[in-house]
C-alpha cells in the first residue's frame, strides 16, 4: 500500500498549506469564466520552478482538481460554464439557481464531484498497471468514432427542438473547420485576418454562453432584475443535500463510470465526459422531460463525471507520457521540469514524489468538497447582485478571460461576434451547448479521419480501416444505439403528446 506509506509526506504542514492554497485558488480560478483548468495549470507551472518537486506537483494537482469543480460554480450561478467540462452542468444547474435553489445545486455539485473524484483517483491508485496500455489501443479510427459518438449526443442537449439542436451542432462543427488544418496544411475560410488561428474553444465557450447571458440580464436590468428573486427563501443544510445526493445511485454510477472511461482515452478529455454522462442519465431516466428544467440528477451526473475523469486522465500520462486530457498534457510539462519522466519507472525510482502527488490529488478532492460546500451558502450573494453590475462584470471578465487564453485579441473579436450572434440565435430557439460541442468535436473527428484516411490508403483501404477492430465495432454499436434510442424516445414522446391532446 504505497499510497498509505507516503500519506504523511502529503500531510506535512508546508504541503498541507500548499494544498489548501491550491484548492481555494483553484476554486476561485475555476469559477472565473475563461480560466479553464488547462489555463490555470499552465499559468502556475512557472511558479513551481522554485519549489521542491513534491510541493510543486501538489500545487498543480490540487489546482487541477479544484478548477474542474470550480467551473461548475459559474455554470450554476451565472449560466456560464467555467470550462468546457462544465457545459452539461449549466443545463440543469442554472434552472435550479433560478428557482432559488442555488445552494442546493452547489451542494450536489461538490458532493458528486467528491464521489466521482475519489473514485477516479482510486482507479489511478489501484488499476494503473492494468490500464496502462489501454490508451495505446486508440488510434485515429477509434478516436474518430469517439468524436462521432459525441456528435450523437448533440440532439438531446437542452434544445426545445431536436432538429434545431442538431442544426446548431452541425453549425458548430462547420465553425471548427475555420483556420489552419494541421493535417492537410491548408488555411480554410479565413475571411478575415482575425480568423487565422481558427476559433478557439475557450473563446467560443465564453462568447456563446456569456454574451447572450449579459444581454439577457440587461433586458431586465433597468427595472432591477436579478438572477433569482427567491434568494431569501433558501436555507439548505449540507446533510439534507448529502442524503438526497447519495440516494441518486444511478446518476452517480453513470457519471463516475463514464468519467473514468473517458479519462483513460487520450485526447477525448473531460470536455465530453460531462456531456456523455448527462445524456446517458437522461436517456435512462424514467422521465427524461424533467431534464433541462432543474433536475438534480443532471448536475449530479455531469459533475461526478468531470471530476471522475481527473484521476484516470493521469494513468496514461504517468505510465506512457500520453496525457488523457488537455490539462494532463500541460501537467506533463510540470512533471518534466522537476525531472520526473513518466514511464514504468516513475513509480519505483521516484516513488516518494509520485505517491505524494497522487495522495495530494486524493486529499485535494476532499478539501475541494469541504471548501466548496463552505462557500456554497454564500451563493445568494452572487444571485442577488443586481443585473447591471453582474452584466458589467461578466462582460469585462469575458474579455479578459478570452484574451488571456492565447494573448490574442482576435479571440476577443471572435468571442464577441459569436456571442452576439448567439443572442439572436437563442431568440430563434437555438441553444449554445450544441454549438460548443460541435466546435469541440469537429477537430477531433476531422483530424483523426484525415490521419486515418492517410494510413488506410497506404494499407487496407478506408472502409476496412474504419470498420474493423473490436474497439471500432463497439464504438459504432454505441453510436447506432445512441441514435436509435434518441429516435425511439422522440417518437414515444410525440405519440404521448398526440394521445394527450386528443
Amino acid at each position: 500500500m504505497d499510497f498509505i506509506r507516503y500519506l504523511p509526506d502529503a500531510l506535512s504542514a508546508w504541503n498541507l498549506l500548499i494544498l489548501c492554497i491550491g484548492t481555494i485558488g483553484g476554486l476561485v480560478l475555476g469559477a472565473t469564466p475563461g480560466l479553464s483548468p488547462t489555463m490555470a495549470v499552465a499559468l502556475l507551472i512557472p511558479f513551481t520552478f522554485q519549489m521542491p518537486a513534491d510541493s510543486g506537483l501538489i500545487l498543480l494537482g490540487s489546482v487541477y482538481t479544484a478548477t474542474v469543480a470550480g467551473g461548475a460554480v459559474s455554470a450554476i450561478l451565472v449560466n456560464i460554464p467555467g470550462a468546457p467540462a462544465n457545459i452539461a452542468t449549466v443545463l440543469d444547474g442554472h434552472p435550479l439557481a433560478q428557482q432559488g435553489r442555488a445552494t442546493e445545486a452547489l451542494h450536489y455539485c461538490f458532493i458528486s464531484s467528491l464521489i466521482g473524484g475519489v473514485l477516479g483517483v482510486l482507479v489511478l491508485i489501484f488499476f494503473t498497471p492494468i490500464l496502462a496500455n489501454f490508451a495505446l489501443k486508440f488510434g485515429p479510427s477509434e478516436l474518430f468514432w469517439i468524436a462521432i459518438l459525441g456528435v450523437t449526443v448533440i440532439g438531446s442537449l437542452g434544445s426545445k427542438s431536436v432538429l434545431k439542436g442538431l442544426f446548431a451542432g452541425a453549425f458548430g462543427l462547420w465553425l471548427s473547420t475555420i483556420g489552419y488544418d494541421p493535417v492537410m496544411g491548408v488555411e480554410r475560410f479565413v475571411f478575415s485576418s482575425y480568423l487565422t488561428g481558427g476559433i478557439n474553444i475557450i473563446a467560443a465557450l465564453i462568447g456563446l454562453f456569456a454574451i447572450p447571458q449579459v444581454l439577457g440580464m440587461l433586458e431586465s436590468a433597468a427595472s432591477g432584475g436579478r438572477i433569482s428573486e427567491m434568494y431569501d427563501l433558501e436555507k439548505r443544510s449540507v446533510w439534507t443535500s448529502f442524503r438526497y445526493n447519495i440516494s441518486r445511485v444511478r446518476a452517480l454510477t453513470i457519471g463516475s463510470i463514464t468519467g473514468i472511461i473517458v479519462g483513460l482515452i487520450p485526447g477525448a478529455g473531460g470536455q465530453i465526459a460531462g456531456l456523455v454522462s448527462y445524456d446517458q442519465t437522461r436517456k435512462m431516466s424514467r422521465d427524461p422531460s424533467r431534464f433541462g428544467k432543474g433536475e438534480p440528477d443532471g448536475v449530479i451526473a455531469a459533475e461526478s463525471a468531470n471530476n471522475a475523469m481527473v484521476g484516470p486522465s493521469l494513468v496514461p500520462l504517468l505510465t506512457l507520457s500520453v496525457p488523457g486530457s488537455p490539462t494532463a498534457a500541460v501537467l506533463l510539462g510540470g512533471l518534466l521540469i522537476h525531472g520526473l519522466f513518466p514511464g514504468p519507472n516513475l513509480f519505483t525510482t521516484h516513488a516518494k514524489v509520485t505517491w505524494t502527488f497522487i495522495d495530494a490529488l486524493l486529499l485535494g478532492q476532499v478539501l475541494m468538497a469541504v471548501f466548496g460546500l463552505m462557500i456554497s451558502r454564500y451563493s445568494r450573494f452572487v444571485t442577488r447582485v443586481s443585473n447591471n453590475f453582474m452584466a458589467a462584470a461578466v462582460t469585462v471578465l469575458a474579455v479578459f478571460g478570452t484574451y488571456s487564453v492565447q494573448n490574442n485579441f482576435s479571440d476577443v473579436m471572435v468571442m464577441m461576434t459569436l456571442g452576439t450572434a448567439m443572442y439572436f440565435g437563442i431568440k430563434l430557439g437555438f441553444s449554445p451547448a450544441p454549438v460548443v460541442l460541435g466546435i469541440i468535436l469537429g477537430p477531433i473527428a476531422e483530424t483523426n479521419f484525415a490521419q486515418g484516411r492517410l494510413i488506410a490508403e497506404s494499407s487496407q483501404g478506408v472502409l476496412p480501416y474504419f470498420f474493423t477492430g473490436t474497439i471500432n465495432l463497439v464504438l459504432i454499436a454505441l453510436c447506432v444505439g445512441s441514435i436509435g434510442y434518441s429516435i425511439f424516445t422522440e417518437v414515444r414522446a410525440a405519440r404521448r403528446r398526440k394521445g394527450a391532446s386528443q
Partner: protein
Amino acid sequence: MNATRLTSIGALVLSLLLYWAAVAPGDPRSYLFPEVIAIAMAILAAAMLVRNWKPSAAKGNAPSSVPWSRLWPAFVIFVAYLLLAQPLGFYLTSWLAFVAISTVYSPAESSIIGAKRCLPASFVFLGILYLVFVLLLQVQTPRGVLF
C-alpha cells in the same frame, strides 16, 4: 409569413452559403469535411422547414422578440470596447465599459445616484481583476497610451 418559417428558410440559406464556401476553393480532399457538414445542415434545415410549414406545428416555440430600444446602448458599448481596448489599454477601457454598462442600466432613479453606486464597485472589481490577472497569473494585456 410566420417567424418560425422564416427561421427555417434562413437556416437553409445559411447552409447553402456554407456549402458554396466549401466547394468554391475546389480542393476536394481538404474541404471534404466542411462540405459534408454543410450538406447535413441543409438537410436539417429542410426538415425544419417541412415541419414548421403548417403554422399550427410551430405553436409554443415561436421566436421571442429582441428589445432593441433597451439593448442598443449595450451594443454601442461592446463595439466601443472592442475598438478602444488595444489603443487605450485593457484596464482603462475595461473600467470604462464596466462603468458605462452598470450606469446606463442602473435601476436607480437618477444618473448621479447610479454613478455614485457604480464607481466604488468599478474600482473594487478592476482592482481584483488586476490582482488576479497581472500579479497572480502574470497575464500581459495590451497596454495603451494611459495604462
